[in-house]
């Protein structure tokens, strides 16, 4: 089975985010980058599929040369090789998806996995867009995946429940927490990660459809009230919720 995983790197959530002086971009200095947490479920699923069906796993990324550091983290988990569409440009989801689709077109993977969304821009667009560009079925927010021959049964999370979705290979799956437990890299994996191959590709598309006007920090809430330190504060809390906040 040929298994492709589209991943991105994101700032660690605990990183303090600073906006550049241009007001439109994030200052990368001092930021620790990690594999987008949702992509870890995609990587783990790819590794499990390879264990079950044999074949190879390929990680795909779009970004600067420096993102190879993140790609090697996927190698350390067990991914076989990678392809980087190398660019310094700020690409939006549409452009990223176009570039990945152009690589995937020739790769003819049996299944393409990606995290349900990236935790920096929370777009959850790339997997869906790739599915349209490649005319492949797409199921997102998957918490369970069963593949039998060419038949795919995926459990997908919705408000208050789950949908069982049926489709066929090749397809694109967006992975959600709960699908699996991503493995930690072992020593062997970490050593091998240094020598696994990464192929560089040129970008094939760069016309962003969305444009950032500016970024700002949310208005800091006016200081809240500590109403009290014991049970005697409860009636006052109820009164405030009723009369001041008007939420009861």
């Amino acid at each position, binding site marked *: 089975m040929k298994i492709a995983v589209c991943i991105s790197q994101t700032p660690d959530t605990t990183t303090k985010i600073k906006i550049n002086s241009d007001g439109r971009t994030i200052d990368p200095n001092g930021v620790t980058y990690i594999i987008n947490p949702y992509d870890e479920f995609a990587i783990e699923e790819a590794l499990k599929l390879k264990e079950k069906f044999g074949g190879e796993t390929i990680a795909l990324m779009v970004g600067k040369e420096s993102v190879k550091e993140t790609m090697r983290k996927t190698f350390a988990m067990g991914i076989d090789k990678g392809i980087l569409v190398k660019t310094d440009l700020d690409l939006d989801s549409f452009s990223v998806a176009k570039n990945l689709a152009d690589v995937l077109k020739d790769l003819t993977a049996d299944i393409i996995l990606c995290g349900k969304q990236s935790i920096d821009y929370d777009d959850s667009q790339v997997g869906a867009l790739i599915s*349209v560009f490649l005319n492949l079925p797409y199921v997102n927010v998957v918490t369970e995946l069963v593949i039998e021959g060419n038949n795919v049964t995926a459990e997908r*999370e919705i408000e208050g429940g*789950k949908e069982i979705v049926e489709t066929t290979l090749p397809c694109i799956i967006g992975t959600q927490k709960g699908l699996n437990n991503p493995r930690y890299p072992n020593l062997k994996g970490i050593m091998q990660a240094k020598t696994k191959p990464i192929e560089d590709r040129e970008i094939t598309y760069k016309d962003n459809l969305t444009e950032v006007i*500016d970024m700002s920090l949310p208005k800091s809430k006016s200081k809240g009230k500590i109403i009290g330190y014991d*049970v005697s504060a409860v009636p006052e809390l109820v009164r405030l919720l009723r009369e001041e906040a008007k*939420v009861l």
Partner: protein
Amino acid sequence: MSKILIFTETRGNKIKNSGYEVASTGVSLAKELNCEAYALLIGNNLSEVKASLSDYGLNKILLAEKQEFEKYSNSVYSKIIADTSTEIGADIIFFSATAMGRDLAPLVAGKLNAGLAVDCTEIKVDSSEIVATRPVFAGKVNVRVKINSPIKIFSLRPNVFKATNTHGPEPITENVNIDLTPDDYITKVKEVTISNDKLDVAEANIIVSGGRGLKTPENFKLIEELANTLGAAVGASRAVVDAGWRPHSEQVGQTGKTVSPNLYIACGISGAIQHMAGMSTSKCIVAINKDKDAPIFQIADYGIVADVFEILPSFTEELKKLLSN
């Protein structure tokens, strides 16, 4: 600008609350841009559902009604929405950022080569440009974006925009007929399972959330009692979900759900950044925690620094008294 198309989600023969919010926002944007607003409903037996949309100021309600559409299929629905949009010449398409909306919006965007702004918390017209605001980086940053493609798609965060009745003329209803082949049904929902009848956090107006401060899974009974009294949904921090005390569907936070209720009551939750990312746009936040330095107090509107076991039973009692009057 000629038309705004609003995909109005239906589930179990009802329009979700967020559907009315998106319809109202679409209608008011249409007024500002001097164009028309149409709603699109997809499903079966839509007459009841259609009637509930008559009071929101829409110019037209489009119905894609067929037995085959009763079960959701993202490939079928996205094709219907994209083709309908092209047929009527819509420049703007609205979705609610629900599970279905987040699934469909990028598929439609791909089909129409359109830019998409996801999970917007504000939509404004600024010098005849539509500017959308959306939270990014776990809510640490707000970004304002505009879309440069001819067709612009927006998904709106549920529970942020208002649904308003307008008592205008009733909208015209029209059936849409989109040609579909068996290939279009490439993804099919075989079955939907609803987890109990519990109100889902993503849909609730009030959420009572518990964290490690509850000490044991059995103590969540206190959270459930308070939630029942308020008609609220129960939420949970990642710590207690990872510990197996509560299901993942209740998890609020970056790797759980993002919620924006009217009232969020955080009990025994310290307020890790990832948790706050999932609930910081709640309109009113109450925190109960015995640690006065807990980060949750920085975003809470009201706080009680005390043990949850001391506060919750009394809080539930006081609310029972208030709500029965």
